[in-house]
Every structure is written in structure tokens, then in C-alpha cells.
């Protein structure tokens, strides 16, 4: 699988994603520059975390207008895989590749900690190595991750099964005490209708190695790698 990690000025998780794809999963990875108009033949495009262009206005607002986003949109329209993590998720909502909006955390503070997340769908190319209802632990680190949409739209998202991850208690229940950023319906990640574009606030790339004490995020990248080759590409080389 050829992977591209987009670098906006201000991206700061670009190298983290690169590291997991390249050194943990042994995939081919290139960086894509925000001014690029071609995706260099990548199968998967990752929009990483960070503060694209400083994000002084709203997370992802400026990056949504970057030249590379036109190419990402075209790639998504053709069914190519697009993964947005944290700031990348914000870029995807701001560019309307994903529904909803990510507003300031309800507590109005940046939050960095581990959260529990329930996998709502395990039939996506991103999640096939999880099981439905599985509860995993992932780090989050953001100030604007409060997912918001109109009630009617939220119902539509649920009906179309576009909610992929939710914040839950360690035992898997939805509970305001564990929905630390106040997201509507505890939504932590959504996909588009076709299921080839995924955005999530937690950082799977920060929990993909034994040495960090948590590997719950690795399966997300493995799912993609496996999808591309029908087997674990990391083992294949």
C-alpha cells in the first residue's frame, strides 16, 4: 500500500504517522506538501494532527482551502482511502468531506489523556481488524474536538451508520462522565457515506507500539494495509 502523509505548515503529527506506517508496518510512505496538486499515486492519504497554518481561526479552516485538498477530494470521490486524525478530522469536516463540525471542547480547555472508545463498525476498510462493540484505549490531545451537528443530521448519520467511534466508559457504556469533550452523542469519529473517508479525534498512531504501553491503535493501520493486499503487508516484505 502506498501511503501519503500530508504536511501543512503547522502539522506536527506527520512524522508520527509516517513512523507507524513505515517502521512499524513496513509500508511505502511519502510526504505530500500542502501545495501539491498530485497525490503521487498514493492509495491512502492521511491528514495528520497539528495546527495547520496555525489554526488561529478554527481548527482545519485554512487547510480545507489548501491546493492539496482538491486532489484529496478527487481521490475520495474515486473511492480512495482518506484518513484524518485530530486536526486532519477538522480539515475533513471543514472541507465537507465529512459531516458535522468540531468546536471547542465543552470544558473550554485543551485535554491530553487516554480515553476509551467503542468501535461502532468493524466492516470498514479502516476497522476490519477490530470487532464491533470492541472497547479500545487511545490517547487524545486537542482543544477543539467537540463534534456538533443538527439533531436531524445526527439522526441521519446514525441511520447511515456513519458513526464509527464513540467515547465510552472502560466498560463500554455511553456516559457523559466519559465524554470528556462534550461531543454530540459521544461521537469520536465518523466516516462518509461510502465509508472510504474516516476522521477521528483520538490518535491511533500514538498507541501502536509495545514500548509505549498500548497497541490498541495499530489495528486501524493494519486494517488498511491488509485491505490493500488481502493480508498483512508488514509480514509480506
Amino acid at each position, binding site marked *: 500500500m502506498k501511503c501519503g502523509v500530508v504536511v501543512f*505548515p*503547522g502539522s*506536527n*503529527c506527520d*512524522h*508520527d504517522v509516517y*513512523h*507507524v506506517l513505515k517502521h512499524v508496518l513496513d509500508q511505502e510512505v511519502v510526504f505530500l506538501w500542502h501545495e501539491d496538486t498530485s497525490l503521487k499515486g498514493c492509495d491512502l492519504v492521511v491528514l495528520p*494532527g*497539528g*495546527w495547520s*497554518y*496555525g*489554526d*488561529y481561526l478554527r481548527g482545519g479552516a485554512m487547510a480545507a482551502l489548501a491546493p492539496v485538498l482538491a486532489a484529496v477530494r478527487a481521490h475520495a470521490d474515486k473511492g480512495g482511502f482518506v484518513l484524518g486524525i485530530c486536526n486532519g478530522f477538522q480539515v475533513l469536516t471543514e472541507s465537507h468531506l465529512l459531516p458535522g463540525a468540531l468546536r471547542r471542547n465543552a470544558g473550554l*480547555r*485543551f*485535554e*491530553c*489523556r487516554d480515553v476509551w472508545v467503542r468501535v461502532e463498525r468493524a466492516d470498514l476498510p479502516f476497522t476490519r481488524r477490530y470487532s464491533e462493540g470492541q472497547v479500545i484505549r487511545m*490517547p487524545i*490531545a486537542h*482543544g477543539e474536538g467537540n463534534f456538533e451537528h443538527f439533531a436531524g443530521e445526527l439522526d441521519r448519520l446514525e441511520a447511515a451508520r456513519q458513526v464509527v467511534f464513540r467515547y465510552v466508559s472502560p466498560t463500554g457504556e455511553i456516559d457523559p462522565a466519559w465524554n470528556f469533550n462534550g461531543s454530540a452523542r459521544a461521537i469520536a469519529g465518523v466516516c462518509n457515506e461510502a465509508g472510504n473517508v474516516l476522521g477521528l479525534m483520538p*490518535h491511533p*498512531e*500514538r498507541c*501502536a*507500539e509495545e*514500548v*509505549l*504501553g498500548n497497541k490498541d491503535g495499530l489495528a486501524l493501520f493494519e486494517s488498511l494495509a491488509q485491505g490493500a493486499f488481502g493480508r498483512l503487508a508488514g509480514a509480506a516484505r
Partner: protein
Amino acid sequence: MTTATQPRVDLPLARELGLSEDEYARLQGLLGRTPTLTELGITSALWSEHCSYKSSKVYLKEFPTSGPRVLQGPGENAGVVEVGHGWVAVFKMESHNHPSYIEPYQGAATGVGGILRDVFTMGARPVAMLDALRFGRLDAPRMRSLVDGVVRGIGDYGNCMGIPTVGGETGFHPSYDGNILVNAFALGIARRERIFKARAAGTGNPILYVGSRTGRDGIHGATMASDAFDAESEKKKPTVQVGDPFTEKVLLEACLEAMRTSAIVAIQDMGAAGLTSSVFEMAARGGVGFRLDLDRVPLREPGLTAYEMMLSESQERMVIVAKRGKQEEVARVFRRWGLEVATIGEVTSGSRAEIVHRGKVEASMPIAPLTDGAPVYQRPVAPPADLARRQEAPSVPEPGDPLGALEALLATPELASKEWIFRQYDHTVRTNTVAGPGGDAAVILLKGTPTGLALTSDVNPVYCFLDPRTGGRQAVAEAVRNLACAGAEPVGLTDCLNFGNPERPEIMWQFRECVRGMAEACRALGVPVVSGNVSLYNETEGRSIHPTPTVAMVGVVPDLGDMPASHFRRPGRRLVLLGTDRGEFGGSAYLRLLHGVEQGRPPAVDLDAEARLARLLRETVPWGIVRTAHDFAEGGLAVALAEATIGAGMGATLNVPLAPRDLFSESQARAIVAILPGQLERFLEAAERHGVPALEVGESGGDRLVIEADGARIDVEVARLREIWTNALPAALGL
């Protein structure tokens, strides 16, 4: 401002800018004439306490600064130490105390920005930060908003940069009511051979300016940092600098990329005293001269005078000496990252600074006498008059109810969990954080190797106040102990020496004694000082802060696979108490926080015992049998055990041969370790070999903390302690 309206240069003006009469005369002597306004401004900045270290220099010489791993000691932008596998660690700590008191958010943010530039200007990629904070009482005026502003400022800047803040310390004490401390530490890593220095060279090489434009912000920040606070400080408000972490992030990437072009001779950030200190210091280190054409300096607003340009502290700016003919290579990189580049001058032969603006020579001065030749003072030193009373042995009441005392201590902001703070800092970005904030030392992975770097920051200002020599020793010893608990060998330290007004003999005494104590401990424990910072004049309305020599230490963990945690993780581990208690309560949390007494001699620091304890841990940790190690600090054994059980909610049952009161004694060189059951003999044998008193006292397990001590008993649910400990700080902040 035009020349016509510029103030007359004379002694009163020189005084206003912080020069003494002698210093002004010295400057006139150097020039052989009356200085221009620009020259006066430059000199007042270079000779300020902040830039020249004129009061502290004589004592800083006492620190050991070399060692087999040290590639660069004090004198550069940051220290450089080898950490193995071809990597070096580059680190430094800086204070931003006064700016943070005036405007906490921007003050703290730009403090972080400044220390990061110090590190990446050396060619290293910053990978971790610590912040050491001291606040006053939370009900002192403005204090809650100062805490909030400082924490947000540090968080927003570091988080945007994508550099994890993995630890730090936070203290509260009335001596900081009017003068808080914000000390920021940054660590970068680089390949050994890729270190850059700020040493200008090569006649005719162009001097480039990159980064943000210059505005009027922060003019005379260095002088402000060298002045005590009073009602007048309010008027200095316009000197507040505003941080732009996004620009710093692209500046970081562009600098590291440009350093790979082989077109850069020297590079230096513009920190305190902006363009002045950066260009003068670079030239002084290289023994060359320079010429600046200020008409080419990129400005945020038109009409800045030469004086303002030379002294502006606008943030996120760097100066580069490029190889002649290759500057375009450098410029291309910066432009690609959306940054401005301007050639503002060149290196000249000789040793003079020539600064031209609008066709007029604004400054023409010798460089070395202004930098290396800055005034040095041996200021009067005298112990405080009330020292004997301060050190008088206090009476120590018995705790009627040891559990009640423990709970009361855990509920103070001083000893409560600092999670409310560090949760606002991204501490997992860069995917290297093996042990984040919350334990003894933070540990980050050196990617591609089995090795970790351990970091900690420590000082006990109350000990330093009661006995600065012991306090200085204790800060270093505690840092070594914190590192040892992760199995790390210390490789170097950096410091931030925060003190009051050096013109008071008792403050200089505190300074001298603290530095001596630190130096003794560094020698005994084998830790070189590779960089640091001095912050004096931390005084408001005549009241000095407690002496606060913050120590940040870096260590190497050879193999992360064996690392213990600082809390209990599994039941059935044998708990071993290391070290000896001497029932020491001078300056203790027990007396200070529960009985309002701040008196006595602080716990003695037996450097030999500290060295033996550290060696024991460093030898046994790699065996994989030490699963938990946590040292004792404020609050003694009881608080340390509470922390060790709260960490993962794993209880413990112990029986210790101590009087109930001594559960709170703060004797040094002590720790609790949890050993794999079958390995106890082996561990005790090692302890004996190292001469470390070791006593098996119980085991981990259950969900309660049970401590029996000479008939008294603490028996409590860990969950209850956790609740008290985690809620205390947000509650005290009124959240």
C-alpha cells in the same frame, strides 16, 4: 520618532536605562566620547544582569562543567551531552518570571518559545519540555488567573509546536505572591556531528535575518528582567511580547532544513535584547566584527528607530551568518516555509560593530569590551540577621490521627496531583513518551534504539530558605534520585537560579551558598552543569522570593524494557524500604502545611548515601526485578506511599519500624521499591553490597493502603485517597 525628538544622552538617561554611574563612565571611556542613544541602549542591554551575569559570574565558576559525555558546556545557546548510539542531547532551561507576572499567558508562552529556539538554533530537534512553576497563595490577588494564564500559555505554545511537555513541578508559597516563577526547559536531540554553533566567521559573509518582522514589542525586556518590581512596573506594560507558535513551528522546520544545506556558518536566535545580543554574541564568540544596515530589517510598522530595532524583542526571529554566495540556498528554504528573509549586514574583519540607519552611523563600538568584557561584580555577601532564629529546632507535634494528617496533606495544592495542569499539555505527541507526567522522572524513547532519556526538575525553596547550602545540595540529590528510580544514569543538568535582589547582601549570600551546595552535589554525584540561567531581582515591594535554584536533570536509561514504574502495578510484590529515617522535620510539609511552622534545619543531605542509593538502583533495575521505585520527598513516607498506590489503584500493606510522626519525616536518600517475590534475596544482597540500608516492610495488593507504624495505623481505601488528591487543585482554583 526622528533624531530631533530623541532624548539627550547623559547620565540620568543612562541611569534610567539601568546603567550605573561607573558603567556609564566606563562606556564613555571605551568610546572616547558620549555614546549615541543607540549605543547607550545596546550597552544597557548587554550589561544588564540578564545578559551579562555580572553579579553571578564569580560563583557560577564553581560548577563542574565537563565530563566524558559533555560536548558543549555553558557558553553556547544550550549544553550538549552524548547519550549514546551517535546521538546527543541538547538542553537548557530559562526563566520568564517578570513577563509572566505582567501578562501570564503571553509571558509563559514566549518563555516556551524562547527556550525552544535556544535548542533548535543548535541544530537539534526539540523533543521534550518541562516547566517548573512557582505560584503564591491561591487567594493572593490575581493568583488564580495567573495560574490559569501561565498554564494556558505554556500549553498553547508547546501544543501547537507539537513538542510534548512531559513533566515539571508546581509549587505554591507566599513568597511568590508578588513574583511568580515560570522556568521552561527544553531538550532536543541531534546526531553528534550535526551540532551548530553561534560563532560568526568569514569576512564578507552575509548576515541574514529570518522569521517574524520587528515591531516595538518587548523593547528593553532584558532590562526589565533585571529590575525589581514596584508600582512603576505597571507602566512597563507595553513591553509585553506576543507569541506566535505557528511562526515558530515553521521557523523550526525551516532552520533544521536549512542547516542541511551546508550554507550556514552560524545561527542564533534573537532572545532577550533581540538583535543586539544575538549579533554581538555571535561576533564575540567568533572574534570578528560586523556591519548592519538597519534599513533592511523587516518591520511590522514603519518608522522604527535604530534604537528600537536593536532592542525590540519581537519573537520568532533568528540571525544567520551564511556562506558568501550561498545565501540564496538558505533563503529558498525559508521562503518555501512562508517565512521572510533579508540580508541585513555582513561579517567584517577587525572587532567592531558598525550599525547604519538612513545613511547615518548609529553605532560604532568595539565588541569584546561590551560582551566578554562586561562588568563583573563581587557584591557584598552576608548571612541574614535572623538566620539562627530561622534554623532553631522546631517542636514537632505528634499527629493525633496519622490518616487525617495524610489526607490533609494530600488535599493541599502543594502536594495534590498536578494532573489538572499537565492534562492541558500535549505529552504524547512525537510518540516517544514512555513515562509522562505524574511519576518521578519522565522518560522518552530515543527512537531506533532501546535507550530512553529520563528528565526531572526539582528544588525545595523552603529548604533553600532555611539553609541554602543544604537546599542546593538537596535539589541536585533529589533529581539524581528521581532519575535513579527509572534506572537512569544522570548525564548533565541545567538550572534556573531564581533569587531576589543581588544588591542585598543576604540575597547574594543565599546565591553563593546555594551554588556551592549544588556544585558539591554535582561533584559528588558526577553530574556536570552544561547550561543554565540566572534570574535575579525577583522581588516585589522589597519582598524577595525564597531562593529557588531549579535543577533540571537529564539521564540515560540504557534499556527501557526493564524500567520500573513509580506506582504499584501488580499484587504480591515485596516492598522494600531503602535508606534511613532520622526524624527530620525542618522545612517539612508536615510542619509547614499542617502546623504553619517554617523553621529548623532542613533534612541533612548525605551525598555519599545518595550516590550509593542511585548506584544500587542503576545496578538492579536492568535485572528486571525492580517493578516499582518511588523516592520520598515532601510529606515523607506516608505521602510517597499514597502516590505509589494511587497511580494505578493498587493497594499495599506495610509495617514500618517508625514512630507515627516519622511517617512524615523528610529524611533524604530514601525510596520504596517493589521487588519480584522470588528475587528479594538477590536484591537485598545487592543493597548490602552497596551499603544501602534495606528492610522488607510488606507487599502490594488489594485496594487499601495499610501502614502500621509503632502501634499507629493508617488504613484507607486507595480510591478515597485518589479522590482527595486529584480534586484538591481544581477545587482550590475554584473550578
